[in-house]
């Protein structure tokens, strides 16, 4: 019995035990709660490293646990189960690694230092400290469960748990109300307002409902597959997919893709991720950058056999992915909230992953997911320390922090460059692979035709991929510059309190720097041997060798152009951003208002629900109450008629009696008479 099973169980149960302890034992002992969670996740991380070792050694695991036997003659068996292969191993490492570092970071983040009037610092701990760690443990448990699932049913259970945890953690500060649009305290931006934001509970609800909508699609798809193939387990479904008619498989694939779209905040269901920033920043770092949002990509990756059997579904995935990448990037350009810019960048990068999946690059997509998890987590953590230090989230009120927070500046700079895709950082390797995959996998691409405006689908995808590289570079540098460059534009007497992140926050950031730099090489040509190459592990044939120098030069070039433009606007102030905004006018406001989708959805949901309610109310009052009232009125009417007879007159009663006698007599006598007896 391979050691993988006990390891898998250990990985799964360590955070769960931590959760139970926090939930029931360490409710007030905050330090103990933190320790339990960190310990749990730590053991999970070590175990997942061992698992990776085993997997590299060629070990695989797929163990079902039969749960229910239903059906006419106990024919179909419903089972749960665990499964470990290359994808799972990678994800395990990513999840446990990032989670461990985030837990440590959170220890520092949840200790606020406020300066009272005399300037003495008071360390103030967040009252929900143990609650935070309890839910964090639960989240890690459910994420690991999702990754280890061997079938749709197991996956769905943990899928919902993850959704629940994201809801709980977004709404962590449930007592805070909405933040109204307040006038900016920044020079040069007089008269402008900081954006109004939803209250944490509302944001949590929004996130939960939107993802639930996607989950509904996944559930229906799951049941469709079950009805067609009679089983939930991925391996058995994969074996039977060939036998199914193409359109059924397409529908199933699209429904599963719905779940992914919901969870990974792709195009139609993306509205919840920017609002999810209401949660504490480490939460955003772990859940809304590295793990949960990646679950959608992982799902499509895990059920890739469905998509391979349905080319139409592949195309849909690609288009949605590409468009989301482009669409999110445009919103990222204009936003002024540091965390929202990063949120849009995450959505954009996820769009890239789905684009890669759509064009057939399973290994490439998962490699980008793996590398993105690290540097995006780092970016969020640095944003956390910036907010923690400067006390504001709006980039216009910052500036000149490079001198005040040097380490944070360095970490953000490197992570930003990795995001843009500057070699030799990991972002470059994974993103370029995607772009070359787009080039390579779609036969319709002619090599070397980069910028030809070809309005066919393939042309569109290429356009999305390349323009997004440009925009990513622009908004990253804009962020870097606004936050760290120039002088402090914010509230003057806040300057003294700005401080570098404390040790528990700084250490994880620095640790994260390591993977941000070296992870890229794991999937790069330097590991030609398929066994050891990350992409090779997942795909049958690695294709680094045909990654032409031309494509590489093109993408890096675009990245540099993006940096140049940003530097021109913010660094050298050649072009005044305010005037540029006036020039682009409607485009700017269009992007700023998130393409109007939020308003659309609010109107839609609000209008739909209210309208439906009105119709039902109408039916309810009109028909049901109507019938009941009618009945009542009829009875009263009859009663009143009846009362008419009760005159109290003896003779009336006598008359009625003898009337009856007449009728009876007639009934008896008349027939005889007429028959002429």
């Amino acid at each position, binding site marked *: 019995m391979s050691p993988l099973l006990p390891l898998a169980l250990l990985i799964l149960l360590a955070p769960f035990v931590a959760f139970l302890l926090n939930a029931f034992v360490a409710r007030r002992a905050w330090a103990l709660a933190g320790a339990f969670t960190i310990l749990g996740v730590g053991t999970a991380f070590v175990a997942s490293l061992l698992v990776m070792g085993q997997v590299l050694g060629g070990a695989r695991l797929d163990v079902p646990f039969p749960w229910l036997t239903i059906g006419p003659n106990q024919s179909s068996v419903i089972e749960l189960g665990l499964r470990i292969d290359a994808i799972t191993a990678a994800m395990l490492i990513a999840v446990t690694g990032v989670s461990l570092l985030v837990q440590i970071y959170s220890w520092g983040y949840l200790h606020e230092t406020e300066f009272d009037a005399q300037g003495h610092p008071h360390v103030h701990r967040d009252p929900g400290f143990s609650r935070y760690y309890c839910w964090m443990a639960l989240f890690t448990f459910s994420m690991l469960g999702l990754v280890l699932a061997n079938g749709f049913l197991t996956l769905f259970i943990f899928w919902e748990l993850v959704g629940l945890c994201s809801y709980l953690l977004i709404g962590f500060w449930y007592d805070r109300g909405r933040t109204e649009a307040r006038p900016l305290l920044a020079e040069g931006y007089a008269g402008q307002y900081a954006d109004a934001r939803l209250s944490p509970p509302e944001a949590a609800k929004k996130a939960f409902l939107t993802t639930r909508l996607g989950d509904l699609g996944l559930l229906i798809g799951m049941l469709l597959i079950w009805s067609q193939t009679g089983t939930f387990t991925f391996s058995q479904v994969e074996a039977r997919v060939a036998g199914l008619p193409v359109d059924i498989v397409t529908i199933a694939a699209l429904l599963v893709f719905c779940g992914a779209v919901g969870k990974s905040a792709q195009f139609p269901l993306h509205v919840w991720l920017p609002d999810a920033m209401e949660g504490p920043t480490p939460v955003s770092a772990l859940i809304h950058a590295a793990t949960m949002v990646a679950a959608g990509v992982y799902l499509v990756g895990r059920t890739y056999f469905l998509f391979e059997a349905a080319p139409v579904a592949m195309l849909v995935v690609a288009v949605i992915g590409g468009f989301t990448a482009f669409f999110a990037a445009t919103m990222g350009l204009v936003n002024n909230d540091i965390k929202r810019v990063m949120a849009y960048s995450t959505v954009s990068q996820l769009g890239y992953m789905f684009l890669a999946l759509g064009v057939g690059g399973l290994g490439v997509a998962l490699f980008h997911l793996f590398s993105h998890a690290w540097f995006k987590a780092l970016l969020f953590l640095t944003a956390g320390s910036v907010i923690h230090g400067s006390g504001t989230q709006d980039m216009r009120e910052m500036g000149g922090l490079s001198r005040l927070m040097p380490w944070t500046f360095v970490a953000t700079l490197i992570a930003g460059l990795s995001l843009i895709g500057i070699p030799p950082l990991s972002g470059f390797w994974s993103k370029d692979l995607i772009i070359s995959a787009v080039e390579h996998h779609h036969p319709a691409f002619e090599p070397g035709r980069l910028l030809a405006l070809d309005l066919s689908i393939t042309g569109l995808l290429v356009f999305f991929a390349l323009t997004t590289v440009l925009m990513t570079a622009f908004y990253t540098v804009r962020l870097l510059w606004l936050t760290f460059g120039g002088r402090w534009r914010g509230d003057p007497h806040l300057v003294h309190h700005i401080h570098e992140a404390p040790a528990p926050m700084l250490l994880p950031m620095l640790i994260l720097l390591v993977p941000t730099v070296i992870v890229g090489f794991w999937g790069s040509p330097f590991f030609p041997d398929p066994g050891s190459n990350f992409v090779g592990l997942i795909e049958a044939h690695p294709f680094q060798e045909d990654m032409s120098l031309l494509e590489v030069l093109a993408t890096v070039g675009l990245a540099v152009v993006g940096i140049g433009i940003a530097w021109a606007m913010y660094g050298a102030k050649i072009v005044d951003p305010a005037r540029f905004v006036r020039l682009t006018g409607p485009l700017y406001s269009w992007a700023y208002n998130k393409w109007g989708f939020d308003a659309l959805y609010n109107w839609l949901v609000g209008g739909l629900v209210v309208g439906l309610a009105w119709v039902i109310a109408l039916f309810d009052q009109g028909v049901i109450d109507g019938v009941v009232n009618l009945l009542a009125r009829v009875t009263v009417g009859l009663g009143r008629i009846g009362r008419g007879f009760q005159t109290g007159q003896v*003779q*009336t009663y006598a*008359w009625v009696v003898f009337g009856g*006698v*007449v009728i009876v*007599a*007639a009934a008896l*006598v*008349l027939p005889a008479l007429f028959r002429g007896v």
Partner: protein
Amino acid sequence: MTDVIATIAFWVFAISAVVGALGVVAARRVFHNALFLVVALGSTAAIYVLLSADFLAAVQILVYVGAIVILMLFAIMLTPQAVELPSFAPGGQQFAGSLVALALFGLMVGAIVTGPWALAARPLDQPTSYDLGRGLLTTFVFPFELASLVLLVGMIGAILLARED
């Protein structure tokens, strides 16, 4: 010979009975109603004699005319009323009453005429008191006792109700 007399007698007493009955209904003053009732009951007694029920005729006179009508006369005396009160119910009720009465009468006549009566030649003018007496104390002994009970209860009830305590 006796048939002729019987027919004449029947018609005489039948007409007097009907006139008496109509008198009971039509007379305006209550006292006259009572007297017409006497006429009706008397002629009915005569009809009984024609139907060879002599004992019944005597009982009819003794009980009805002798007791009940006089009782009614007493009741009339004890409840003095302003005479001019309308003795008949308003039109609507009168019409309804007559409607029911006529309908019932029509139906009865219909039934009588078409009824398949199994006529049997019965001996006429037999003294009946002996057979009735015997019948009362043999086959009808239970109703006889019950009748006595009813009369007793009636008597006590009447005394209790009418007593001015």
